């Protein structure tokens, strides 16, 4: 299952490290990522792949939300098909 993970918040040291570590812990493979500062906001988008079902989607979402609270950024995870449906013919 491909997912889109977006991380938005105030820029500071260690956001990429913390998020990628958490994704590794959750066994989510990062296929693609981009990161930028938009009007001072740290904005990162990752395409990830959840290969096995050892964690439920809800559990993964919960853990990422918790991490977001810890490091004071908003982390969102959504299945990729929605984006394809809207943006591609």
């Amino acid at each position, binding site marked *: 299952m491909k997912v889109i993970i*977006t991380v938005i918040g105030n820029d500071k040291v260690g956001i990429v490290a913390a998020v990628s570590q958490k994704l590794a812990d959750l066994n989510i493979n990062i296929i693609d990522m*981009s990161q*930028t500062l938009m009007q001072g906001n740290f904005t990162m988008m990752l395409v990830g792949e959840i290969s096995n079902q050892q964690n439920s*989607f809800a559990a993964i979402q919960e853990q990422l939300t918790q991490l977001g609270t810890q490091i004071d950024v908003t982390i969102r995870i959504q*299945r990729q098909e*929605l*984006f394809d*449906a*809207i*943006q591609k013919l």
Partner: protein
Amino acid sequence: METRQIQETLQMIDEEHLDIRTITMGISLFDCIDSNVDKACQRIYDKITTKARDLVKVAQDIQMEYGVPIVNKRISVTPIAMVAAAADTDNYVAYAKVLDRAASDLGIDIIGGFSALVQKGYQSGDRKLIASIPEALSETSKVCSSVNIGSTRAGINMDAVAQMGTIVKDIAAIDPLKCMNLVIFANAVEDNPFMAGAFHGVGEADCAINMGISGPGVVKRALEQVKGQPFDVVSETIKKTAFKVTRVGQFVGNIAAKRLNVPFGIVDLSLAPTPAPGDSVAEILEEIGLESVGAPGTTAALALLNDAVKKGGIMACEHVGGLSGAFIPVSEDQGMIKAVQAGKLSLEKLEAMTAVCSVGLDMVAVPGDTTAATISGLLADEAAIGMINNKTTAIRIIPATGQSVGEDINFGGLFGHAPIMAVNQSQPTDFVARGGRIPAPVHSFKN
């Protein structure tokens, strides 16, 4: 996938209120018919709670996994006037109560189908159902009712028009807020997922999933990028935006239907506003260049909007149905409320707008002393617009008992509040009293 597209999609959901307004499961109740009311009600309860057992959970799962809000989970059923016609009772309130109980037990927001189709005449069940509407609505919290009193093929049943004016007044006497659970239609559609007018039509499959999407904010934001440009550009912009919005409905509907193991019916392309800031159809019209909705030009702007939404949406879906257009409910749209309060939008202009949008006089509050004949007159006018233009029209009108023009009636939550609008005081009493049927128009004979 480009990051710009990801950002755009997230912005549509977060800032511009793109959402699935409703996932509505249509359920046929024909196989629940029984002359014994208790038996029939038990069958209805069993069928609804079996078919829709997972509806709420599936909707919640999809919302979580895909990050797109699904605001309402609803059910529509076969018009109860048909289901109950064989029953040995004159009062159909028991049927409304069982619908209410099934909806509550399932965690469904609203259930529609306490309905009758009388465009050409009454069968025995229709009379009993319509007489039961005031009590049925006052005794339940989630049940919605609708009555179809006219169509392009059949003309307008003026006996029903007269009766429904009285019914609306009867409901208002008990509780004006309950009037928002009743829609009176001409050319009602059988697969409409939106309430209060949803029912599961006679020609529908046993069970189907119908989707209603929403996203006035997305359209407005897109139009902000083409300020001052010609209408060709405006129309193209709306079409492209409507396409994207509608794709969400098609996509989510497909997943929901698969998970529920039910055929996917239709996507209703309607732009449905809510009282939330930035979720307004009126603001789209103003973005097109009107100082306020209601200004001269409003009808033309709405006609363009309605048409472009359909054109953009049709390609995005396998099957389009329902009402599909722009909704203009007064109380559910901040821009409409503002215009009425400022005296810039009258009931008459609203009526003109209903000739080119997808519904009718929707969520309109009128003074408490508005007569039944006046309501019937308004209804007849709306039905005539629908009949002649071959489109759905309706009224959902709220006589605000004890209140008058300038005051405000509050419906709470998604339903907003409505300033009470002035109504022409000249009475259509003798017109309404004639009864009978207005014949179908000449262009109905297409065979």
